[in-house]
C-alpha cells in the first residue's frame, strides 16, 4: 500500500509537471526545449495518466515483491529533476557558459567555423521585420555585408579584446538546452559609449562587415545605437 501511494504520487507529480510546462509554464519550457517538441510532453503526460489510472485500480500483488525499504531511493530519485526545477527557474546561460562552449585563444575567441550551421527557414518568433537573426548573420554573412542590420543579443566584454570591441552572443539549440552552442558577432562601440555589464540583453543597430581582429574571427557590427532590452520570451535561436 505505501509503495502504491508513493508510485502514484510520483506519476501524478510528473504528469502535472508536464501538463503545466505545456500550458502555463511555456516561458520555462522555452528555456529547456525546442518549441517544435511540445508534443513530447503531451505524449509523456498522457502515458503517465494511463499508468496512474491503472495503478489506482490495481489489485494487491499476488507474488512476492521487494519491500519498500529497499526500493524507496530508486523512487525518490525520480523526483530529483523536479527538485532541480526550483533552481532552474532563475538559472540562465551566461558569459561563463559562452566561454566554456567556445574555442578560446590567448588573444580572444575563435568562431566555430568547423560546425555546420544550416540556415534556419523559420526565423525566431521575436524577430521584427527590421531585425536580422544572429544565426542568419553567422550562416549567410555575404548577404548582409555593408548593410545596416539590427540584432538582439547578450553582451560579453572580455579583457583579451580591445576596449571598443565587445561580443554579442546568443545560443543556438537543435533539440534542448543541453546541446546549446554559442553564436556571436563582434560589436565595435562608438567612442565614449557607456560600459555595459556582461550578459545584458541589448539591441544593436549598425553596419555589418566581415572584419576580423587579431585572433578573434567573426562577423563585425559597427554600432550606431545600442539599447538595452528585456530578455526575449524565447532566448535561444534555431
Amino acid at each position, binding site marked *: 500500500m505505501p509503495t502504491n501511494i508513493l*508510485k502514484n504520487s*510520483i*506519476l501524478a507529480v510528473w504528469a502535472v509537471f*508536464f501538463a503545466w510546462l505545456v500550458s502555463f509554464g511555456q516561458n520555462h*519550457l522555452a528555456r*529547456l*526545449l525546442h518549441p517544435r*517538441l511540445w508534443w*513530447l*510532453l503531451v*505524449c*509523456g503526460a498522457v*502515458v503517465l495518466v*494511463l*499508468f496512474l489510472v*491503472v*495503478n489506482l*485500480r*490495481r489489485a494487491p*500483488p*499476488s*507474488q*512476492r*515483491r*521487494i*519491500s519498500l525499504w*529497499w526500493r524507496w*531511493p*530508486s*523512487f*525518490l*530519485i*525520480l523526483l*530529483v*529533476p523536479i*527538485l*532541480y*526545477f526550483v*533552481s*532552474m527557474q*532563475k*538559472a*540562465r*546561460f*551566461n558569459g*561563463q*557558459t559562452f566561454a*566554456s*562552449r567556445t*574555442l*578560446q585563444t590567448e588573444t580572444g575567441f575563435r568562431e566555430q567555423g568547423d*560546425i555546420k550551421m*544550416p540556415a534556419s527557414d523559420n526565423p525566431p518568433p521575436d524577430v521584427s521585420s527590421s531585425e536580422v537573426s544572429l544565426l542568419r548573420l553567422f550562416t549567410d554573412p555575404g548577404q548582409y555585408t555593408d548593410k545596416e542590420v539590427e540584432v538582439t543579443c547578450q553582451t560579453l566584454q572580455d579583457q583579451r579584446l580591445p576596449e571598443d570591441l565587445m561580443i554579442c552572443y546568443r545560443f543556438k539549440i*537543435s*533539440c*534542448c*538546452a*543541453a*546541446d546549446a*552552442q554559442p553564436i556571436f558577432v563582434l560589436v565595435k562601440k562608438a567612442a565614449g559609449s557607456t560600459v555595459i555589464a556582461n550578459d545584458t540583453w541589448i539591441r544593436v543597430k549598425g553596419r555589418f562587415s566581415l572584419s576580423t581582429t587579431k585572433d578573434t574571427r567573426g562577423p563585425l557590427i559597427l554600432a550606431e545605437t545600442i539599447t538595452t532590452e528585456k530578455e526575449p520570451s524565447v532566448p535561444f535561436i534555431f
Partner: protein
Amino acid sequence: MPHNSLIRFPVFQPVPPPILPCLSQHLTWVAGILFLVLTTLLLFLGQAPVWHNLISNISINFLAMMVEALPFMLIGSLTGGLIEVFVPVAWVDRTFRQHRLRAVFIAGAMGLFFPVCECAIVPVIRRLLGKGVPFAAALTFLLAGPIVNSLVAASTAIAYSYDWRIVALRLGSGYCIAVTIGLLLGRWFNRENGLEQELRGNLPSGCGHEECGQDHSPAPWPDRLRHALEHASDDFFSVGFYLVIGAFIAAFVRSFVPMDTFSYLLATPWQAILIMMAMAVLLNLCSEADAFIAASFRGLLPGSAQMAFMVLGPMLDLKLLLMYFSVFSKRVILALVITVVGVVLVTMLGLQYFSPILF
C-alpha cells in the same frame, strides 16, 4: 450433499512476505542513497556564489535532458508492455524455431515492427525465451531491438536535424553488429549452458501476469491492455531512476568540462571513440534519448565517436549489465561484454578511417 451444490467460501489470501534483496539490490540501494545525498548537497551548494554558475548550468542541462528523454522512455515502456501481452506464441514458434539461422537475421530487424526500449528489452527477452525463441536469435534481438526500431530512428532524426545518413548508419551498424555477435555467441552458448541457473528449463512469464500468453483461454482485450499498462508502469519504475542518474552525470560533464578539452580529442579519433564508449556504459541512457546527448557533442567530437556512443549504449551499459544477470549465466555475460565492446570499437574505427566522408 451433492458436489455441484457445494458453496465456495472466500479464502483469505494474505499478502506474501517480501523477497529479501540480493547483493546487486543492496548495492543499488547504497548507490541510490549516495546519489540523493550528492544531488541535494549540490543544490544547496548552488546558493554560494562560487558554485552558483556551475549548479545553474547543471540545472538547465539536467532539466532539458529529462524533459526531452523521459517521454521517450515512457513511450518505450508502453510499447514493451504491449509486446509482452499481445505478441502471440504461435507466431514466435513459426517464425523462429523452424529456421534457426534465418531466425537470427529476422531477430535483428524485429525491432522495426516491435519497437522496444532497452529498459523493457530484458523482460521481453525472458518472455521470448519462454516462448521457445532460439538462444542466438534472442541474443540478437536483445542487442538490436533497442537500436533497430522506428522510435529510435525518429528520435535520432530529430536529434540530428533530420540527417538521414546518421539514422541509416546507426540502424545499419546496430543491425550488423547485433547479427555478428548473435551468430558468434550462438555457436558456443545455448539454452542449456547460457541461461542463469534458476531459469534453465523453467522460464516464467516475463511479466508475472497470469493472463499473459501461456494459458489457453486468453483474457478479454481490455484486461490484457490493463496488464500491458501495469507491466509498462513496473518497467518505468524499475529503470526510470537509471535515466535520472545518467542524465545528471551527462549534465554535469556538459557543464563542468569546457569545450577546449574536447577539442584536444578531436585530433585523436580513436581516443574520442574509446571515451564516448566509456561514457555510453556509464550514463545508462535510454536508446531513444541518447541520440540527443550524442548530438550535443556535435562539433566537439568526431562523428564516429558519437556513433559509438549511440550504438554501444543500448547494447551495454551498467543498468543492462545488472539486468543481464537475471537471465544469462556469468560466462555468457563476460563473453557478451568482450564481444560487444570489441566489435563496436573495430566497426567505429573502420568507419572513421575508411569512410570519414559519411560524417
